[in-house]
């Protein structure tokens, strides 16, 4: 199993930043840093899956923990709403789902985010 963590991180971070639509240097730095952390975590989760240390259900829960943590980091910035943070992280993860699933050989991320995409792209009511 091989994944380019730097490339994954850059892709996730850029997607998060694009979704947040912010010019703030602080937001940019945090979005890119979260991209790197999520990429590392996804790579580790994919590795655990490939080694059969965990199954698909556990992998999905571990991904959710990482997603929650990134939402905490982004939502702690005053200029970002929780809905925007949640949507940005979701889109960032969704963008690399296929690559990570292919590397682990277990389709975990794609189904997880396919069902959540409709919620993320729906207009926010709060």
């Amino acid at each position, binding site marked *: 199993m091989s994944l380019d963590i730097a490339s994954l991180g850059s892709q996730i971070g850029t997607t998060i930043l694009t979704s947040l639509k912010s010019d703030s240097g602080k937001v940019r730095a945090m979005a890119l840093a979260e991209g790197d952390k999520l990429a590392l975590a996804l790579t580790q989760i994919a590795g655990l899956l490939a080694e059969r240390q965990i199954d698909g259900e556990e992998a999905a829960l571990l991904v*959710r923990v*990482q997603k*929650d*943590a990134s939402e*905490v980091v982004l939502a*702690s910035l005053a200029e970002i709403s929780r809905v925007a943070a949640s949507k940005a992280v979701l889109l960032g993860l969704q963008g690399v789902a296929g690559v990570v699933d292919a590397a682990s050989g277990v389709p975990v991320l794609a189904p997880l985010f396919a069902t959540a995409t409709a919620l993320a792209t729906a207009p926010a009511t709060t």
Partner: protein
Amino acid sequence: MQFRQIILALFGLVSLTCCALLPRLADPQVVTLAQKVGSDASTFFADLAAKGDKDCSFAENAAAYDHLTKLATALNAHIAASKSSPALVLASQALLRTLADARASHVAASVKTDDANGACMAPGAIALNAAAIARASAAIAATQTAEGAQ
């Protein structure tokens, strides 16, 4: 007259400075609780990684998750009551979700005993959850510290 004007000017300056600083003071309770969540989680996960079959299951460690959730709930309630930062209210709610999902992942790992780790979580999974909770709680503490420094 001149002396009185200087005193009034100084008083005005001090008042303005205080008014400007007061709303931005870091809330020590938020910093303390967020750091406590991070440090207690770090200790718990380090201990968990060293535990064997008898002690590593979710059932044996549920109290630790209860403790962390109690701390995060207190943090969330304090932030909400102080009405200082809507962003931190949302962040502390997300921290509670992080803990709930970490708990759920331990439950799922313990239910499945037919893998190499038995009722234990995979060491890699423990490390991932520990890192996630550490960065989430640190973000909240850092936000407060940064607001206080402004």
